[in-house]
Structure formats: structure tokens, C-alpha cells
């Protein structure tokens, strides 16, 4: 894995449609599960109690919205540089990122535009789960500095 240079600016002028953001892959193991609860402060049982999940008709614990937002947020902020700004982020939770699986966040630049003097980049974002496939498709718009 390449180390991220957090101090390097990413300029709108240099971004191309089709550019891919570096993917992030996490194993959803026992440590990830407790970090999820600690980091999100979401104590809903369905996210950490297998018995409760099963009683709800759900076969496994699945990771919560705070965690999902954080992972997709990190995908964007790792890439955008210190002066970038995540302006919007939308996603749908169509599938579950279940405990014991591997989850990978991907992003692809789909558009570039200027609006109200802001230089904007549109990004398709997605969480993909092994073996579940795409669980969380979404979009984001990032404001970047110009050269």
C-alpha cells in the first residue's frame, strides 16, 4: 500500500474524468466490530449482537451507518488534499456489510465543473463486499483548489 501524502494539494486542473481514487480495503473482524461501536457510538444491537440480528430475521451482524459514512468519507478525504472540501455525499445502503467479510471502498471521478466560482469534481463512490458485491453505491461532490 502506498503511503498517503496528506500535505500534497490536489488541483482541479490536474484531475481527469475517469481518475480512480485509491481503494481502501478493510477486514470486518472482531476488532473492526468493536472499533465500529466505539468510533460511531451507535449501540444498536443489530450492529454487534448476533443473537439480536438473527431474531430480527437478519443472518449476521452488519456494520452501521456511521461506519459506512466514515469509510466513504475517508476515501474522499485521503484523495482530495488539505484544501479540498467534501461538499456533498450521498449513498444508498442496498446490501449489508456483514461481520467476517472484507469490504472495499472505491471511487471514480465522473465529472468536472465550475459552479458559483467553485471548482467541483463529481465522484462515484461505492462499497463492495467480498462475497456480497456492491452493497453501497453513492456519489459525492468535492471542491478543489485551482492552480
Amino acid at each position, binding site marked *: 500500500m502506498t503511503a*498517503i501524502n*496528506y*500535505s500534497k494539494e490536489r488541483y482541479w486542473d490536474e484531475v481527469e474524468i475517469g481518475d480512480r481514487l485509491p481503494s*481502501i480495503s*478493510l477486514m470486518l473482524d472482531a476488532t473492526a466490530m468493536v*472499533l*465500529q461501536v*466505539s*468510533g*460511531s*457510538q*451507535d*449501540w*444498536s444491537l*443489530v450492529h454487534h449482537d448476533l443473537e439480536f440480528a438473527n*431474531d*430480527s*430475521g*437478519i443472518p449476521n451482524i452488519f456494520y*452501521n*451507518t*456511521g*461506519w*459506512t*459514512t*466514515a*469509510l*466513504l*468519507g*475517508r476515501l*474522499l*478525504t*485521503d484523495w482530495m488534499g*488539505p*484544501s479540498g*472540501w*467534501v*461538499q*456533498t*455525499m*450521498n*449513498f*444508498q*445502503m442496498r446490501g449489508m456489510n456483514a461481520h467476517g467479510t472484507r469490504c472495499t471502498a472505491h471511487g471514480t471521478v465522473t465529472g468536472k465543473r465550475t459552479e458559483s466560482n467553485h471548482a467541483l469534481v463529481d465522484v462515484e463512490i461505492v462499497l463492495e463486499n467480498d462475497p456480497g458485491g456492491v452493497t453501497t453505491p453513492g456519489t459525492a461532490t468535492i471542491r478543489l483548489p485551482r492552480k
Partner: protein
Amino acid sequence: MSAIHPMDYDIDAIRKEWVNRVIRTGHGRYPVEFDPIRRHCHMVGDLNPAFLDPELAEQGPHGAVIVPPSMLLTYFSGKGPWPPAAEKTETPQQEDTPASFFAVPVPGDRGINMEVQWDFLEPVRVGDRLRMEMIIADVFIKPIKLDPYTVWVVSETSFFNQEDLVVAKWRNTVLFHRSPAQIAEDNARSDAQTST
């Protein structure tokens, strides 16, 4: 059995009563702090110094550590550091009033978030004091595999800082379904009423 039997659930009355209603206002119990940001970042392996390193962040464009854009939900998380007692719910629930955690009465008591839309408007820095205001934007019934009588609740939340500036807006869609055991009990009641 579910909190409200579907036969007793009047979606039109629910919509009339709840849509566009402010259902919750809340103030952060503490100012924005470093360590919850660290926990939020470490949950997904985020090492960005803009969120974690006060000295480096001071030299950055925001002049201080800011919360990751993904963290506002955590700051006001209902079951963690901001228990319901810290919030003002506009329509306090009676003990015998079934409700979702958005206060809207629903048959099922199992919630799943389905869609999230964020607008991030202003940076939030360590030391800021935040408040939020949530309205119900929509309520409707749409079946899912688990439950043919699933109620979907759409909420819109604005987050404000200490200067009353809106720092973010959040539109959230959550569904509430019944457990298989609750559905079976509800069906048994329906069958009994049909046969009498």
C-alpha cells in the same frame, strides 16, 4: 406482537400528524473534542492529520483540527455520548406509546438505515458547540422481503454551530420492520379476526 398491529395503523393520519413537524432538537453536551474524532478516524484506519494532529492542522487551511465530514452523525449519536436525556424531543413519548426512535409511531421496532444524503457547508472545529434540529420529511409504507408492512421514515436534520450558522444538512431514510416472530403473531391475530 408488534407495537401497533398493521390493521390498526392509519398511514394517512400518521402522515398528517408528523410530516413537516420538528421532532427533535438537541445541543451537544460537550464542545467538539479531540478524542471522539480520533476514535471516529481509527474506526476506519483514517490517519489524516487534518483530523488528528493539532500542530499540523494549525498550519492547514482551516487553522485547527476539524471534524471529518463523516462525523456529525456520531457527535449526536442517540445511544452513545448524547443519550436521549440530553436532547429535547418535541413530542415526549409516553411509556405505552409505540414509536420509532424518530418519535413517529410504527408497527415494527427493528430499524435499518437505507439512504443518506449530506451537504457539508462549513468546517467544524474542536471547541465548537453544535446543536441540531430534525424534522420529519416523509412517512410511507413499502414492503421489504423481511416484512410486507414496513414503514419508511425520511428525516431532515440541520446542524448549527455556536454562531447559529448551518454547518451541515442531513437527509436520512430509515425503515422499520417487524421481526419474524412479531409478524407471525400479527398474522395469527389477523387470522383470528378474519375467522370470527
